[in-house]
């Protein structure tokens, strides 16, 4: 039983760490900010999630105590990650859309239809 659990723990740790690395690799490798945004916010959530899960299994198996408070970290991350992504996205839209950042990647200037529809660019006066 412990064997299996240990295997699970090890696998989860490695998987989690692996996802973290892949996410960070994505951050380095992907071509533009909007695409890079995908890497870390996801891979790291599962990355951290895996390690947290490992921790949650580890404690009852090895120390004889149940711990669930790792869940709290997950909760906070799940609240925080989308907000961060959203805010970074907005900031990026804003700066690219207003020609502040010189990097023309992401097609934002060309690709974003009807620039004045979005909260970042316009204020709904209605």
């Amino acid at each position: 039983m412990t064997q299996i659990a240990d295997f699970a723990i090890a696998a989860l740790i490695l998987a989690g760490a692996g996802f973290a690395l892949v996410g960070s690799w994505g951050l380095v490798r992907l071509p533009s900010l909007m695409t890079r945004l995908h890497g870390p916010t996801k891979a790291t959530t599962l990355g951290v999630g895996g390690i947290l899960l490992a921790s949650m299994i580890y404690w009852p198996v090895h120390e004889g105590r149940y711990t669930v408070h790792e869940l709290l970290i997950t909760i906070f991350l799940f609240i925080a990650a989308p907000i961060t992504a959203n805010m970074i996205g907005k900031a990026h839209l804003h700066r690219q859309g207003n020609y502040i950042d010189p990097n023309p990647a992401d097609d934002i200037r060309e690709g974003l239809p009807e620039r004045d529809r979005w909260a970042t660019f316009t204020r709904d006066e209605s």
Partner: protein
Amino acid sequence: MIRNLFPHPGLSGLLAVFWVLLANSVSWGSIIMAGIVAVVVPLFTSPYWREKPRLRFGWAMLEYLLVVLWDIVVANFEVAWIILTKRDRDLRSAWLVIPLDVNQPEAITALAGTISLTPGTVSADVSACGRMLLVHALDVGDRDEAVARIKARYEARLTRIFR
């Protein structure tokens, strides 16, 4: 009376659970403390959250949660695969515009959060009128289909949770 004591019943419940998780033990002590927390904390925070979301508790929530978790796991692998293998020029990243049916801020946020958490998509902005969501997708074949999938898979369930 009850209303005054629990301005946010949902929140109170969440906080109680939260406390028990924090204390990491299920004992009378922690449960009583959880009760206190559930009462006291919302009293303090309710001015900052006046417009309470209208929620429906039940299976819908759990189902939604499970679906999202599953999607996170699955999509994580997809994105990992993309990151590791796809070349930049093969990447079909695109902007998706999702018209919204839900209109409570909490619901929109939940939807946007879900979209962001599930890999491959990031919600970047809300429209100025609040009825559309701007989503960036890392690699998508058919935009309309992606939009439809999001609406069906998440938004539909959310409308059941948020009255």
